[in-house]
């Protein structure tokens, strides 16, 4: 009952005029960002984070979470109408969404995606409301060894479950962690890693500098080079009568995929490093696997649209759970949200539920409102978004570059950091060319300032004995799971070799 009371307060807070306005703007911006090929929630949140300093932290995070939500809905628009996923989270939506559009049923695909997204987001928000206080309560007893073990787990999941090249993933994680140590040693107060003796590095390297460089400059450059402007739009014909018929058909032919995506997406989203992209792909796979007519998948099945769309919305809410309760982001976007919270003077983690309960419940309340707003705005303005998608990339791209640079300056107030944004952006482009995953580096630069002090405090507690991570009742299982995850690729490799020998 206490949860319901907190939730009611949270919803009321989210309904305050400034918050409802920010939700509407955030959802609309998110829908557009999600729909634009090459831009996803992470780009939107990274580029727009600096402008949120204008409003109080509670409203700022509601705005950014609304962008996150809207982007998850918006990804489907370009997957269906352009055949290009608006974001990686909507890749699986193209499998059946695009064939439906080519059959002249773009409207059915978009309506199915919108309804599935709404159900996925709502189911996940209910789970979030139930689980978050429990997890936060448990996490209150965590000391430095437990927190460091959780950090280790977050990085280990990238290695074990990320699916990228393992040495390159490890390099990326360590690179992000080292960048976080530049500036001053917080314990001794001495300058540390002042690279090439450039004074600008004394200020350290903020996570936002890396995030804007990677997701603002690097990814834009990547999209310009990769798409080469070869995009054709399929216009959905939407009328009020058609919308009602499509809604009926979407519910009838998409409910299985929606159910699978809503549940599976949440639990995959909770895992650090997993997030909405694997959640949506996995849900598509499971929905196809258990379908009575799997042959329909890939040729325009509404279930095939519903499963990934429900999952990516569900996973995006799931990814917020470890971020708010444990201080560990479940996705690159939540890593940036977490970094933003630190800038706003909040400490993510279990104490947040005690010390900043209004902030937390306001955010949870906003999830419900954002879901409804996303559904309504999405359905009402699909033709407008499709029209906006026709905006030439040669107009959008320079606007994104400008927002990245001016937004980066607003956050960092230093030309040194602006140059770093450009260097990171160009570097990210070439690293991506060689399959270096960049999300682990962004996650690491956010978690680095938490990981290092907790490791050093833990080792101080144990007089330098690392067995402290294996002897404490909560830290030990987390550390062991992390080590298993790190070793998982090696086990898989050994098994494959043995199978080859036996085969």
């Amino acid at each position, binding site marked *: 009952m206490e949860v319901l009371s907190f939730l009611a307060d949270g919803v009321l807070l989210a309904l305050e005029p400034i918050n409802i306005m920010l939700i509407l703007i955030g959802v609309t911006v998110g829908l557009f960002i999600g729909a634009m090929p090459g831009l996803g929630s992470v780009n939107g949140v990274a580029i727009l984070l600096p402008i949120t300093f204008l409003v109080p932290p509670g409203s700022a995070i509601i705005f950014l979470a609304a962008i996150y939500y809207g982007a998850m809905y918006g990804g489907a628009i370009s997957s269906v109408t352009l055949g290009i996923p608006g974001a990686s989270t909507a890749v699986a939506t193209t499998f059946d969404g695009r064939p439906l559009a080519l059959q002249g049923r773009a409207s059915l695909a978009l309506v199915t995606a919108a309804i599935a997204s709404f159900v996925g987001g709502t189911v996940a928000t209910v789970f979030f409301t139930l689980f978050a206080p429990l997890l936060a309560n448990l996490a209150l007893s965590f000391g430095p060894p437990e927190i460091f073990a959780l950090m280790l787990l977050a990085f280990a999941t990238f290695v074990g479950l990320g699916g990228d090249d393992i040495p390159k993933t490890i390099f990326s994680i*360590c690179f992000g962690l*080292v960048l976080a140590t530049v500036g001053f040693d917080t314990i001794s107060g001495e300058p*540390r890693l002042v690279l090439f003796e450039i004074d600008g590095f004394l200020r350290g390297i903020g996570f936002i500098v890396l995030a804007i460089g990677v997701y603002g400059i690097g990814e834009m450059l990547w999209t310009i080079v990769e798409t080469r402007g070869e995009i054709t739009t399929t216009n959905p014909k939407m009328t009020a009568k058609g919308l009602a018929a499509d809604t009926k058909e979407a519910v009838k032919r998409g409910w299985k995929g929606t159910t699978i995506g809503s549940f599976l997406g949440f639990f995959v989203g909770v895992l650090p490093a997993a997030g909405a992209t694997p959640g949506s792909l996995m849900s598509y796979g499971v929905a196809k696997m258990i379908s009575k007519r799997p042959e329909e998948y890939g040729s325009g099945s509404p279930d095939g649209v519903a499963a990934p769309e429900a999952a990516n919305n569900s996973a995006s809410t799931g990814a917020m759970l470890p971020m708010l309760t444990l201080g560990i982001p479940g996705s690159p976007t939540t890593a940036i949200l977490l970094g933003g919270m630190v800038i706003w003077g909040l400490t993510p983690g279990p104490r947040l539920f005690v010390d900043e309960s209004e902030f937390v419940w306001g955010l949870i309340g906003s999830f419900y409102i954002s879901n409804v707003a996303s559904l309504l705005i999405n359905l009402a303005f699909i033709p407008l978004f499709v029209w906006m998608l026709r905006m030439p990339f040669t107009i959008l791209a320079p606007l994104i570059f400008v927002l990245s640079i001016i937004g980066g300056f607003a956050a960092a107030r230093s030309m040194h950091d602006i140059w770093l944004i450009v260097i990171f952006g160009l570097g990210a482009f070439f690293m991506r*060319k060689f399959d270096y995953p960049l999300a682990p580096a962004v996650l690491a630069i956010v978690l680095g300032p938490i990981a290092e002090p907790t490791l050093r405090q833990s080792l101080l507690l144990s007089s330098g004995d690392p067995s402290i991570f294996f002897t404490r009742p909560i830290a030990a299982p987390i550390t062991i799971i992390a080590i298993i995850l790190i070793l998982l690729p090696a086990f898989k490799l050994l098994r494959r070799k043995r199978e080859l020998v036996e085969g």
Partner: protein
Amino acid sequence: MRQGEISLAGLFALFSLYLMWKASELPIGYIRGTGPGGGFWPFWLSFVMLLSCGAIAWNWWRGKSPASTSREPLLDAFGWRTVILVGGGVVAFVALINVISMYGAIAIFLAYYLRFLGRHSWWLTLAIAILLPIGLFFFFEAAMLISMPQGMPFTQPFFDVMYDIIY
């Protein structure tokens, strides 16, 4: 691609060694009573970066990564041209900030991109290149109270006029 992958790994290995050397300017071992030294964490992370570079090179030698077996160039002519024109444009934009102010650099960059890369009409180019910096000026300077770089002294008359409007 093949040559590029090993070159990048080599570059990162050198950078890792540099980071290890820089980190060792502070103690990298355990100090009784105060715990691990200030260089401990970055030193060992840089060491793992170096090991990762070794593993990347090992995979490259065995032909286990997609890039190591690719015969394609890193970028084709269109790709290099795009990187140079777009990336170079962004670099020039940032370089101009301290000369003609943030807003002046934005106007020049937008004009360059829209007109010369996007081949849009002069009307559209000028409309966006003039109105957007003015809109951003009011947003950052008036609403957010954040002062952007104003460049060299010759831009001052422009800022005097704009500040007169705000205050």
